[in-house]
């Protein structure tokens, strides 16, 4: 088999000599492939937290990324964050071979709507 594949260099770099970090794409290296993505609004009560489950049924545990805006409405945080502008609420998530399970904290004072956006990646998370 010969030396084949696709590579694209960044603007200003010669594709024949550009190092990998100066390339926009190189088929020799894996890329995150987004299998599915979407927005979710979750009603979170003032106490006890809330859970939202996304079913993927991939048969393996995928990588994933989730962003979420919590009760302070200060902006969107990465999963695993506690909102420093809020009342101590945060959110966490885990993946299994069938589901993404998201747990969102209550703020202890009032109910709110958590605005989440998720990405499920084709590449395994395990």
């Amino acid at each position: 088999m010969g030396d084949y594949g696709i590579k694209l260099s960044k603007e200003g770099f010669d594709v024949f000599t550009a190092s990998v970090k100066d390339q926009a794409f190189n088929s020799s290296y894996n890329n995150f492939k987004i299998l599915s993505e979407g927005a979710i609004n979750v009603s979170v009560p003032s106490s006890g937290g809330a859970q939202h489950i996304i079913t993927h049924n991939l048969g393996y545990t995928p990588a994933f990324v989730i962003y979420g805006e919590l009760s302070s409405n200060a902006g969107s945080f990465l999963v695993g964050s506690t909102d420093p502008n809020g009342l101590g609420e945060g959110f966490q998530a885990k993946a299994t071979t069938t589901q993404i399970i998201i747990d969102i904290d209550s703020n202890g004072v009032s109910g709110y709507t958590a605005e989440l956006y998720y990405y499920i990646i084709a590449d395994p998370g395990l």
Partner: protein
Amino acid sequence: MGDYGAKVSQPGYDVLTATDKQLVFSSKFNTFRVFMNGTGSVNLNGSTPQTFEVTHGLGYVPAFMVLSEIHTDFGGSAGNMYTVPFMSPIGGDVGIIPYADATKLYVRYGANHSPGAFSINLRYFIYYNKAK
């Protein structure tokens, strides 16, 4: 319209039969595309939170990733970059928390992340992809 597009399989897999996770690339799937990236530094003072800000101006909340040094009290050393959010079980306002709105990316360093004056470096990636 027919079944068309481009895909590239990982070494050892036939592109015609490879599963999605055995592909390097497939035009069937969206990917994370970097809108901007850069570096910054924040001077911590040991008493008040400090927030790094960068304007993206996309008009919507973008996805992002941030790497940051952490204080030596947490095991960090110059040039060692950690993914954030960084949360510590010791409690207190010690976390490093990135977040974004429709105009800016913010990286907030807790008031007690450093016991005194300390300069800390970070790198950010802001994607075209949405976070909201």
